[in-house]
């Protein structure tokens, strides 16, 4: 046992030192983000105490002193939507600078995919944006199907649309519930999660899992929707518009909600576009960009629905757009139920798709195909493809490169949360610290998707 201060064995926060060491090793000077991290983090407890004292002295409240106070929010702050860390420079209550620091949930999914077969990689990509697992798989299977030039049965496409919209509904419910919580409205959270739980139950009915389903397969869907599912969904859809009215009754004209959201977090639509922002955040600023309309995939062209837009571009407009999108999703799902075509749910391509289970009992060929597909996986022709879909948060893109083998050469997921989060800095700068929370909530980032 050493006699030194036991705390010194645990440096409070190591990332400041990591920033300096990393930059030194790579032979470059500290970048602005690294400088911000080094400024807010101490190496040892003694230094931490010294810095705290210095910061307090700098930020003394004498009128006119105007020294900035640098504070660290996160990564485990309950109001930052998961493990998002934000370093904020404050002048009184006003935010002068925002530096988002991400990567706390990085699990190297893209690297893992390179060591799995095309078929196994579905399991990995599902786990990125955990509130929209169907969106992740959807873009991945579309990209792989593009390389394989596959025809997908109509019923499979319609089921994909159905589940994607159900997923959009569930994801927006989480947005609504958690941002209510962050704005101090407790009850909306319980109402939203009540309905979301019903959706998760239905996901479980279809795929066996409440989250991280690997239900979409290359070529279609893993199996047909179970008996009783459509009846349950019909009941749910009948109730849902009334439930959305309920949420709106709680929030839309609520003076506190309006005070916290209206006019908060606005930048010009062109700037949002330049930052690559897509989805409800962009549509709330007046640009009606929706991939379901502009580049229909999986048969979205068969359905009638509107693309809700607002022009204000503030947090309140983003809330309105999402609520109206929930209503549109209900409309689309109703149309799917009314016109769901009969037929197979997966393509009949024995070189890619597993043969039906019962055939293994009598067909030698099916058995061989099954064995080859499970042990070796299917091969994808060499080339590259980029498939995009409209996820609840914006443009979800999947870039796959194949070298002709049974494993992906490269899988890259362009996650909308990751790109949209860049807008946090311009949106929150110059506002109040409390508005920063509203802005984060209205961007609706999912850290699993940001960090992948």
């Amino acid at each position, binding site marked *: 046992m050493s006699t030194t201060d036991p705390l010194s064995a645990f440096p409070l926060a190591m*990332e400041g*030192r*990591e*920033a300096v*060491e*990393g*930059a030194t*090793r790579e032979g*470059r000077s*500290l*970048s*602005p*983000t*690294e400088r911000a*991290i080094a400024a807010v983090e101490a190496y040892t407890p003694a230094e931490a105490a010294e810095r705290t004292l210095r910061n307090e002295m700098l930020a003394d409240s004498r009128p006119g002193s105007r020294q900035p106070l640098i504070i660290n929010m996160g990564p485990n702050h309950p109001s930052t939507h998961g493990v998002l860390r934000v370093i904020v420079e404050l002048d009184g209550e006003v935010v002068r600078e925002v530096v988002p620091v*991400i*990567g706390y949930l*990085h699990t*190297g999914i*893209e*690297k*893992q995919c*390179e*060591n799995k077969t095309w078929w196994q990689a579905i399991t990995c990509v599902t786990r990125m944006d955990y509130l929209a697992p169907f969106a992740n798989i959807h873009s991945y299977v579309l990209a792989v199907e*593009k*390389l394989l*030039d596959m025809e997908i049965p109509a019923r499979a496409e319609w089921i994909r649309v159905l589940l994607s919209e159900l997923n959009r509904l569930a994801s927006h419910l989480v947005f609504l519930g958690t941002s209510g919580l962050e704005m101090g409205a407790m009850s909306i959270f319980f109402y939203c999660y009540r309905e979301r739980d019903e959706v998760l139950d239905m996901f479980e009915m279809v795929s066996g899992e409440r989250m991280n389903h690997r239900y979409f397969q290359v070529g279609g869907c893993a199996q047909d929707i179970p008996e009783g599912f459509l009846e349950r969904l019909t009941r749910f859809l009948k109730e849902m518009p009334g439930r959305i009215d309920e949420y709106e009754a709680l929030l839309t004209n609520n003076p506190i909600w309006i005070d916290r959201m209206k006019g908060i977090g606005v930048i010009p639509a062109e*700037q949002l*576009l*330049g*930052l*690559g*922002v*897509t989805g409800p955040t962009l549509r709330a600023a007046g*640009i009606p*960009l929706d991939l379901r309309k*502009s*580049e229909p995939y999986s048969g979205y062209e068969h359905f009638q629905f509107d693309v809700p837009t607002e022009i204000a571009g503030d947090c309140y407009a983003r809330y309105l757009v999402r609520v109206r999108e929930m209503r549109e999703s209900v409309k689309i799902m109703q149309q799917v139920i009314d016109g769901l075509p009969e037929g197979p749910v997966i393509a009949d391509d024995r070189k890619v798709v597993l043969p039906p289970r019962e055939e293994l009992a009598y067909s030698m060929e099916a058995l061989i195909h099954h064995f080859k597909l499970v042990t070796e996986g299917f091969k994808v*022709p*060499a*080339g*590259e*493809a*980029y498939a*995009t879909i409209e996820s609840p948060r914006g*443009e979800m*893109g999947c*870039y796959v*490169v*194949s*070298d002709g083998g049974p494993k992906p*050469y*490269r899988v*890259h997921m*362009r996650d909308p949360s*990751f*790109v949209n989060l*860049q807008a946090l800095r311009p949106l929150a700068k110059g506002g109040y610290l409390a508005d920063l929370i509203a802005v984060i909530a209205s961007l609706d980032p999912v850290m699993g998707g940001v*960090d*992948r």
Partner: protein
Amino acid sequence: MGRPARKRHPEERVGELSDASTQIEATSPGAVVQEFEDHGELTVEVRADRILEAARALKSGPSQFTLLSGVTCADFPDEPGRFRLAYHLRSVQTGGRVRLRAWAGGLDPQIDSVTSVWPGADWQEREVFDQFGVRFHGHPDLCRILNPLDWDGHPLRRDYPIGGEEVQFTDAV
């Protein structure tokens, strides 16, 4: 990589070039190395030292590729250029898409940053720097983003092992 469906070289058939390549060639002659269409996607490969000019031409030209959907990279250790960058562009006005490609070079991979054209390239280029070690000139904040700041090596390179972290008590038999 791959067998492109239709391969066209700018010197051979200037008249048949796509709008995107024509736009680049108009302001930066000789920048386009090749272009081809595969699986319905147009790919324009440009010389790495002309990437910024090509980006400017595509954004301000008639097709108006105002939205940079994504910047990403793939590592081909056996190719002389090694790191192949892919910029996925989308035109909000016309709905068109194009993939801009460039090879960053194997020994000291570097390329100009396009953050001055599309500010949204910021984090995406940082991710490529972090995962592949490609340096972007003129990037305002080039540092690691997903991996820890003092991480050694660039995980998405093909020669980076997937071994992972050593598990506790590995040596204690």
